[in-house]
């Protein structure tokens, strides 16, 4: 599934709406503030495209709400804002590393055959990678099973692609404009 032009347009509209919120407050002159404004509004716009159906969008909105609650509330028109912000996300999966390591050591002593070890090693690699993926995708730690994680990654990648495409086209147009 590739990002469609309609998705681009929707994202752009929402992003503009978010940027409008900063219009009255002109005292944000620092570069960081402005950059934060742009990025956060883009993130929320991207997440709101999914309208709360996916886990990553909810987690992303939650994350930006901690940084700029006002913006999030303004951007998500009324109804959704409350439900999305106050929504209780599933518990984070916490692993106590020491305990896990000790149990793994004990397990390792038992299986000795070569093919089993290879399979176990492959499994370990895959597990490490999935953990890495959980760290990258917003809300990844909250997803309990791998199938859901992969599905969310898919959706997240498509949304990121739209975001990057739109931003890049604007930058290019602005640069071409300045060159005139």
């Amino acid at each position, binding site marked *: *599934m*590739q990002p469609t032009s309609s998705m681009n347009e929707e994202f*752009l*509209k929402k992003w*503009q*709406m978010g*940027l*409008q919120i*900063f*219009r009255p407050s*002109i005292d944000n*002159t620092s*570069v960081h503030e*402005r*950059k934060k*404004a*742009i*990025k956060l509004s*883009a993130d929320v716009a991207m997440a709101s495209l999914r309208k709360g159906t996916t886990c990553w969008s909810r987690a992303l909105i939650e994350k930006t709400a901690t940084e700029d609650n006002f913006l999030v509330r303004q951007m998500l028109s009324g109804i959704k804002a409350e439900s999305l912000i106050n929504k209780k996300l599933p518990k984070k999966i916490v692993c106590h590393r020491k305990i896990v390591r000790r149990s793994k050591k004990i397990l390792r002593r038992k299986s000795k055959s070569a093919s089993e070890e290879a399979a176990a090693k*492959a499994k370990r*690699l*895959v597990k490490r*990678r*999935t953990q*890495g*993926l959980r760290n*990258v*995708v917003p809300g990844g730690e909250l997803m309990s*099973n*791998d*199938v859901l994680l*992969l*599905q969310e*990654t*898919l959706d*997240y*990648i*498509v949304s*990121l*692609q739209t*975001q*990057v495409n*739109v*931003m*890049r*086209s*604007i*930058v*290019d*147009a*602005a*640069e*071409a*404009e*300045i060159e*005139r």
Partner: protein
Amino acid sequence: MATFSYFQNYPHSLLDSLLFPTPHSSINLTGFIDQNHLHPLPNSSLVEDISFNPFLDEHNVDRTENSGLKKQANTTKTATTGSSSCDHGPSAITTTGKNRGRKARNVSNSKEGVEGRKSKKQKRGSKEEPPKDYIHVRARRGQATDSHSLAERVRREKISERMRTLQNLVPGCDKVTGKALMLDEIINYVQTLQTQVEFLSMKLTSISPVVYDFGSDLDGLILRSEMGSPEVGTSFTNTMPTTTSIFPSLLDKSIVPTHAQVQVDLISSHLHGGNKIYVNLGS
């Protein structure tokens, strides 16, 4: 002749039908003897086959898979593929049956999970599958039938299916095989995209001196970048109503959206206006 060859391909089916008596198998027995009964049979088993079609590749590759049934949320995919493939004649079944080499599917009779969570598809002549609550998974010959392995298999199939779609999405992942490497690529790609977003947002702030005016520039810029310049004028009319509503303060003058030149003037004026504000604040 047909019956004889049929019997030869699946000699074990008779025994199986005897060992695992099901209403399905009783009809199978007659099917062997009487050629006329062959036709209804392939239809029913065709649907069973087709239910596996989405996962066909993994079945042939992964030997260690076990079989069974599991109660799950229905994916309408199996339903749609089943209904679409039902339309193919029964002639398709023998060829597909033979093609599945080592995984010789017992067309007429397959082992079913002993657990009570299964249900058979009664497909005689019906073209459409009624949507059900759970996926019907048939066990294959030579595979374990306890529910755990069944659940495992379905889960694994789902994961590999998702991985395949991800493979199409992430550029440069066609040659990579195996879960670990694929996941590596995916993680890298997501991180790249995220850093790109950061970089582009930084660039945007540096390009437009005041970001808030830049919001109004967005419309003009986007239109110019997306469409060719001769079309700019017409497309501008479409977005004009929204922009005027959002940026009433800026767009005082009425715009004649027929010439690209007018638009360029507008944008440049905004930019200059932005610069002016910036200078005032700085001083």
